[in-house]
């Protein structure tokens, strides 16, 4: 297994230390995330996947964000008092960027149409199903138009079929961005990731990059993929 070397600058982490009080989650961490590719970080619950992602997003004390990132969490985090279009435009509203907001409106509409919510622009989030809300959250994440997108188990709360649909949609819309997606679902990692890396141990170590064959999103019934899934599950089971 080798690193993919890309000409455009990748997102890199060097000598990072993530700790909460005495509990060290990661120490002297060095990681490279290839540009314009999706890297899936796989690990068991509690290993520190989310902490790493929050560290990359600059959400942890002492964390320095190297470049602007868009962040998508497990919950949709849509604001209940705003309609969908305003939710998607939240970043521009919060920054008070009037010119940017005006310029972003057509993009927000297009994104909502692409996620299948083009006819619900003014609707409040509570009128939508969980899958629809997560699609709106995806549109909001993409509307920020940032090169690096961080996703924390974004489809974990959805039913199996909705999850597969959203994975396909996300792969299509995220093409060309540097994506770091955290998940505990090996199949999700194998379907969406150009690279899959396993986190294990305490403080965690990051395993070598696994690059499944074929273009993303990969067919979940592909025997090669299912074989890899078996290997990943075995690896996850063997680690603490």
């Amino acid at each position: 297994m080798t690193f993919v070397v890309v000409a455009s600058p990748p997102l890199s982490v060097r000598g990072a230390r993530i700790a909460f009080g005495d509990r060290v989650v990661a120490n002297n961490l060095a990681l490279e995330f290839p540009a314009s590719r999706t890297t899936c970080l796989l690990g068991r619950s509690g290993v520190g996947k989310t902490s790493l992602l929050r560290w990359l997003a600059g959400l942890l004390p002492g964390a320095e964000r190297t470049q602007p990132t868009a962040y998508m969490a497990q919950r949709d985090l849509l604001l209940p008092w705003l309609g969908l279009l305003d939710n998607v435009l939240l970043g521009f509203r919060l920054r008070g960027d009037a010119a940017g907001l005006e310029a972003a409106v057509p993009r927000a509409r297009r994104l909502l149409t692409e996620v299948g919510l083009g006819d619900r622009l003014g609707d409040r989030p509570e009128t939508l199903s969980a899958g629809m809300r997560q699609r709106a959250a995806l549109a909001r994440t993409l509307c920020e138009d940032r090169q690096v997108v961080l996703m924390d188990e974004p489809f974990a709360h959805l039913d199996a079929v909705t999850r597969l649909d959203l994975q396909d949609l996300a792969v299509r819309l995220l093409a060309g961005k540097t994506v770091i997606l955290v998940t505990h679902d090996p199949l999700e990692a194998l379907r969406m990731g150009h690279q899959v890396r396993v986190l294990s141990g305490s403080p965690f170590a990051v395993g070598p990059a696994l690059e499944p064959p074929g273009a993303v999103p990969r067919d979940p019934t592909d025997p090669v993929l299912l074989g890899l899934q078996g290997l990943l599950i075995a690896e996850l089971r063997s680690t603490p």
Partner: protein
Amino acid sequence: MRPLITAVGLLLAWEALAWATGVPVYILPPPTRVAVVLVQRFDLLIEQAAWTAAEMMLGLVLGLVLGATLAVVFAASAGWRRWALPLVIISQAIPVIAIAPLLVLWLGYGMASKVAMAALVIFFPVVSALYDGLSRTDPGWLDLAQTMDAPPRAVLLQIKLPAALPAFASGARIAAAVAPIGAVIGEWVGASAGLGFLMTQSLARGQTPLAFAALVLLCLLGLALYHATDWVTRRLVPWQSLQGE
């Protein structure tokens, strides 16, 4: 429907008690007697009720504005929170009845002292409910705003404040329920008009049925104020009422 049946039942029991014991009217007038006075002295009663209602509503508005402003200031500034929040809490340790005579002394027998009294009992539940709401914003929303590089002012105005509106609404409902206390205590201590004033006057003259009639109107006023506030605050947070339905 059920509260109505209970109320009618209680009134019948009261009537029966008054007749059976033969208690004098100036001690406990039967409901029928109170009803008669309510009709006979309606003009006087409604005039005094309008005065008290004005005191309650002005006090409520003043208390809400004052309370909301303080809560936002406390949420926005740690300095203000450290210096002024303890004072706000201490102010609640003083029973309002104890400062009522002082307010009347300073602001006079007119409406101002009653409005001040009502505002004083109202502002605390509003401050504490809204401040609580402002400091309990969903951390996920705050993280999201941070990754979007939102300035603190925008986070307060566009996320924390709307997110705290349901808490403000419950504070406002409590405020509406206690508003009559402030106004009436003020009237009991010293006033020239209002239902509380009418009660002290009629009780002193042995016109107990009139005092009871004033009490009935006071009760109705309190209910009306509460339900009006409830109606308004529900429209303030439509996303919450929809979730509740």
